[in-house]
């Protein structure tokens, strides 16, 4: 697979992840897909900001081999389950590629970390990490996936720091996709009328609203009435 094809296939994976959920919020998905398809943004950038983003998109940091390794690694960190796809198949490697260009301090730790993975894989199994059997990959990850919290972050072994960074970027990349947000169950970013915590949630947590406090709060039936007050500041409407 040449580099162009590799990027293309990862890219299609990302777009398909978006398409699968398109029926929930058609207008937003269409926008997002357009942005993904063209690289153009539609979220309030200034012309200068858009130009900077376009310039980053025009560069390529990771090699095809590194991108393939990232696809394998991110899918190991967050594999598919019964309901949702893996992180790799919703475009997380593309997100990491973008972040490496947008925040250059990521470049060496990620590139070097991937090289470390290949080095240990070659030594131990005679193959690069991406070509190992899943059990062999797990054997390596078991050794680097559990940081010793008694040691400060900056003092941990490089491979542990690398894996923590990859886990962070994988999870943040996944949970900021349409798929990830559906998986999480976040219900907001929707026009609504907030009228307090649902009763069953209050019950679950042993909480209750006080009458005196509620008496101060907005009666949402009146939200459309234009406010007016008496001279003492008592609301009349």
């Amino acid at each position: 697979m040449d580099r162009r094809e590799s990027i293309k296939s990862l890219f299609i994976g990302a777009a398909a992840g978006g398409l699968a959920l398109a029926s929930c919020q058609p207008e937003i998905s269409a926008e997002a897909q357009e942005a993904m398809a063209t690289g153009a943004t539609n979220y309030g950038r200034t012309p200068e900001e858009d130009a900077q983003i376009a310039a980053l998109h025009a560069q390529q940091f990771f090699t095809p081999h590194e991108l393939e390794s990232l696809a394998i690694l991110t899918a190991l960190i967050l594999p598919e389950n019964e309901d949702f796809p893996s992180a790799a198949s919703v475009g997380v490697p593309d997100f990491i590629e973008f972040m490496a260009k947008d925040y250059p301090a990521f470049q060496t730790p990620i590139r070097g970390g991937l090289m470390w993975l290949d080095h240990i894989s070659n030594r131990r199994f005679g193959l690069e990490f991406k070509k190992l059997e899943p059990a062999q990959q797990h054997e390596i990850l078991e050794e680097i996936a559990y940081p010793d919290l008694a040691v400060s972050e900056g003092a941990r072994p490089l491979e542990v720091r690398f894996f923590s960074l990859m886990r962070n970027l994988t999870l943040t990349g996944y949970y900021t996709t349409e798929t990830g947000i559906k998986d999480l169950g976040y219900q907001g970013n929707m026009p609504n009328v907030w009228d307090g915590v649902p009763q069953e949630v209050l019950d679950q947590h042993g909480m209750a609203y006080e009458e005196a406090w509620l008496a101060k709060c907005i009666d949402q039936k009146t939200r459309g009435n234009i406010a007016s007050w008496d001279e003492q500041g008592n609301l009349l409407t």
Partner: protein
Amino acid sequence: MQIKESSKIYDAVIVGSGAGGGMATKILSEAGLNIAVVEAGPHFDPSNPDQQTQMKWPWESPRRGANTQRTFGDFDALYGGWDIPGEPYTRKDGTKFDWFRARMLGGRTNHWGRISLRFSERDFKHKDVDGLGDNWPIGYEDVKPYYDKVDKLIGLFGSKENLPNEPDGFFLPPPKPRLHELFYIKGARKSNIPVIPSRMSMLTKKINPERGVCFYCGQCNRSCSAYADFSAGSCLIFPAQKNGGQIDLYNNAMVREVLTNSEGKATGISYIDKADRKEYTLRAKVVVLAASACSSARILLNSKSPQHPNGLGNSGNTVGKYLHDSTGSGRSAFVPDLVNRKMYNEDGVGGMHVYTPWWLDNKKLDFPRGYHIEVWGGMGMPNYGFGFNANEYNKFFGLKVGGYGNSLRSDVKKYYGSVVGFGGRGESIAMEDNYCEIDPSVVDQFGIPVLRFHYNWSDFERKQAKHMHETFDELIHNMGGEALSAAPGADREYGLEAPGRIIHEVGTTRMGNDPKTSVVNQFQQLHDANNVFIVDAGPFVSQADKNPTWTILALSWRTCDYIVEQLKMQNI
């Protein structure tokens, strides 16, 4: 002469379009004055689809909202920040000050927290209580009518509490608390720390036919496309234009100095047009500076003339001095009772529904001024950074931290919405030795000499920050929580943010009756030139433990009424 002069003479030129400049634009234009508004950044309207970030999803940003491009992340409305390319500033004697600047129509009001608090009589006269700083030449009764008018014009929610130091106003009803805020209330009460509904300028109810009502997306920092929060463009400048005001907007225009004549009176301003990088002048009968406290001080100090050799308004050597920001320090905690939450939409308004005003008597404490506590938490929209250290709180249950695989999905859900955070925002004492001045050795890209800062916190602020963390520890304990970091010690100034980080910098052109120790009089009129006014936070004598915006708005309105009256009487 290569500087391009306009032949038109405006009644007033207003420098800056944030809270103070926006209010001046509205009041002066509605009085029939012919106005120029000069803004250093581009036009901005949150309802312009090309500029809108509200209601966008994280995946629409290739960096998922990370703050590599905009200071507070991709979806925050603000253009500008603490560091602006081509616009440096310097610091003196190893001291710290971080200078925040907005560069857009409406300024910082497009993304601010909308916490809208009135100063009390004690806040205006705090020297009478503890002998520190200075009293304002005005008191609450002078400003109250304007607070009242601002409340009704712009709208804010809150509740009547009859607290002596937290004057009530004309409130819209507040939204109900969120779940983590109920935990906060319960925890605070165990220590007799009061909690009341917050007071913020979002419309929970309609206040006029033009502006929308809050639809609870929690994104006020993105500036509301329905104009349901207060931003100076949406709520002051655009309505003034629609009301037929004679307003010329000059965008991308960086003001260099105020021009004066042989009598020492202002004749207008000069600015650099960012598009063609040429210098222009605008002539006006009145100059109103609203460029932000330090920017207005910089303009004055750079306005040197034979009549004002020390800079305009600076005959008493006071411009730039008494610079002070709110103190700030914060902590956060994991609350085990908030794990495994049921999902529902709790975006609410952008920010807290409840807060704690200052509640103690400083006479019984080892620091002179108070602070209020802001609360955050909840199941917010994922953004860059969500999922980092996903199962770190496993450590509180004796479980392994780290790993990989599908167990991470349940870890993320388990801990979603289980963190509550606190921010203390306190009053610092204005001191002569905390100041900005011109750095004669450094220039910005527009050829304008830059500011140099000198600022130290004192033990007053350090002891206050120490007290904040003692309070946070108590709150965390009361909520059954686990602090996510230890209380910072003396080596870190008890967690005090560097001055400038809270973005409440005030005091650089302070108000007073004595021209030797103040820059403007009680109407924010320069002692040294009676047709120059300052309506940003520069004239604040002290900042209170309150956010400054509501007071900027009220004082700007008061000053504009005075300007109109003085023009009518032909006094200026």
